[in-house]
């Protein structure tokens, strides 16, 4: 299983880190919509969450069944040690990519 993170995987992992104990599918989806401006489908979000769990970056636990979910449980996600390391690595890579770039970015004169 690859330890590299795709764009949606990184955004999802960050959303779980941000939401802490409230990180379940619907909350993650709302957070992604708010921060990326893209309305991901429920299936896309759970596919990503499951892939991150398969990679060992997330762990999950289920709540008691809830009436508002038609008697289904909520699955809450949390970062694992590997997930936290993957985020730090992604942050380091991003900082390295931005290093030396003067802001605000302007086009070079012709």
């Amino acid at each position, binding site marked *: 299983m690859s330890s590299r993170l795709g764009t949606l995987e990184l955004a999802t992992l960050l959303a779980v880190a941000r939401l802490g104990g409230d990180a379940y599918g619907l909350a993650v989806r709302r957070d992604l919509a708010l921060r990326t401006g893209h309305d991901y489908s429920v*299936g896309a979000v*759970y596919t990503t969450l499951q892939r991150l769990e398969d990679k060992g970056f997330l762990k999950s636990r289920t709540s008691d069944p809830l009436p508002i979910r*038609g008697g*289904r449980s909520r699955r809450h996600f949390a970062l694992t040690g590997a997930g936290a390391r993957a985020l730090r690595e992604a942050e380091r890579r991003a900082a390295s990519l931005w290093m030396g770039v003067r802001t605000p970015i302007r086009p070079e004169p012709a």
Partner: protein
Amino acid sequence: MRTRPRADSLLRSLGADRGFVDDVLGDLAEEYALRTERDGVLAARCWYAREALRSAPYLLRNAVRRLGPRGRVRLAALVALVTLVIPLALRALLPGMGPPDRLVAAPFVVNNLDPVRLPLRVLDAAGRTLADTGVRFLWTSGTPVSVSAEGLVTCARIGDAVVRASLGSLVTQVPVRCRPVADIRAPGMLELILGAPAREVPFEAVGVDGRPVTLLVGRIRIGDSSVAVLEGQRIRPIAAGHTWVETQIGNRITFSSVHVYGLAQSLEGVRPDQHLAVPLLLDRGESREWRLPAGRYLLRVVLDQDRQPAARLLVAGATCTLFERTHLDCLARGDMAITVRQSHPVGSATPLGATLLVWRKDH
């Protein structure tokens, strides 16, 4: 939310992991409940249906990844049912087409210089259109035009012809009006004033002989219908701004830029990209002057009537060039002044009625 057993069982039937399906359906149910309260039942149902459809490919993918060989066979059978059996069933239920019964063609105007296909329909006895029928075409009379057996007509000159179309024992005559258009002449700019009535989109189609062509089939399109709208061949201003209008006849296309000016009493505070129209009424020798900030401007004075005193447009503090023989295109690096003055013949006492059009071109 009340559970939706049909959606539930349908999604489960795809064979996805039960936990995965529960997670997806749980989120859908939870948000459905929230949306029902906020947006009403109908909007929430629409949202639910759309989201369930959007999530279906992920459930399928989950099923493919998690199923064993038997499960995959079941899934393949389900997909085959949807893609093969349903269309076949629909085809069996719908009545079949009958044999060709008649050929239908209206008089056909050709404005193209390139070959065009004759639009002829073959119908069965129930009036249903049949496809790919192998109709053969042949020129029979009138202006000689090139017609291929498959119905491609090439009009090189103006005239009327008759083409025979046949399919077995079915025969019809198709009148062909050859009016090839070599050019469409239209003004580069079309200027409209907000509140004014709709006016014809101005253009002239010119034939291969250089004379106007009046029998035309074409299309007129507007770029931005929030600025101006088309009403048949007329254009009505909607809001100040600019867009374009495209006129297509045969295989010729021409564009005109469309500028809609908003009426104003003064040019004070004209903003970048703003279009203003200032009505003027000037007595003999009278003038009006405005100061404008640095920028690029397109200026024009339009007289209310043709036969009346002329107006002079004077600009100070800017570099101007004549544009389309009617406009001044001016660039001012600092403040500029524009003056409109009545330049009347000696003895004339008629006041000048006109409109000053100003488009500040810089953004």
